[in-house]
């Protein structure tokens, strides 16, 4: 079996990819995808910790991931609705241009 470190490193790398996308891309949808990837990286951590944990019978990791998936779905729905609303208003999804609140 792969040691736990393998999963943790994979998860950390996935998190980094998501973070990089969220921080460097212009398009709001890609930013949202990056955030989703970060959430998924966290989920992978939960599952890995549950599997390698002391008592997997407690199901804590699995429960956390199930709730995280539900929250992520809600987040995606609201986030994309926001992006569509912003697009209607400004005719752009570029996060660099939507800066009207900037002082």
């Amino acid at each position, binding site marked *: *079996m*792969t*040691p*736990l*470190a*393998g*999963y*943790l*490193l*994979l998860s*950390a790398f*996935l*998190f*980094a*990819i*998501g*973070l*990089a996308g969220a*921080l*460097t*891309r212009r*398009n709001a*949808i*890609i930013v*949202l*995808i*990056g955030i*989703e*990837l970060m959430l*998924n990286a966290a*989920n*992978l951590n939960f*599952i*890995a910790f*549950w*599997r*390698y944990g002391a008592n*997997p019978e407690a*199901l804590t*990791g*699995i*429960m956390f*991931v*199930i*709730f995280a*998936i*539900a*929250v*992520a*779905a809600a987040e*995606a*729905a609201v986030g*994309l*609705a926001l*992006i*569509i*609303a912003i697009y*209607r208003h400004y005719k752009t*999804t570029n*996060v660099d241009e939507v800066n009207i609140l900037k002082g």
Partner: protein
Amino acid sequence: MTLPFAIIAVLIVAAASAAMTLRNLVHSALAVAVAFGGLALAYLYLDAQFVGLAQILVYVGAVAILIVFAVLLTRGGEAPEKSIFSATWFWGLLITVAVFATLAWCVMHSFASKREPADKVEVTVKQIGDALMTKFVLPLEVIGLLLTAALIGAVIIAMREEKK
């Protein structure tokens, strides 16, 4: 490091990197769907059958579709002419590298990361259902409320404003 894990890891990393770097938004969305599928495979490989299938159902079946719809509704189907990276990409990348370095350092130096797993864990759907209805019933109700709120909220936000 076993072969299935290596394949899954390469799949996830390649698909996620593609999703973050491709110019065309639809390509990004489809690549991220592959990444979600790879994560589902990872969950299945870790004996979390229910979560893996739920991951496919929710992420590939719903979230990816939602992203694709959003891309098309915001006319993002064609690759943009100008740069796809934001003006502050350098700082973003720097922060990312710092975060990854920190995480990787923590993982490598953690006592937990050398741990070997227990033997095959069998989690039946019934166990999960029982847990959801007993120990985790409050979070379940809260999630139900949250999803309803998100549903209504998303509809209201995305609804076309009435022209007066």
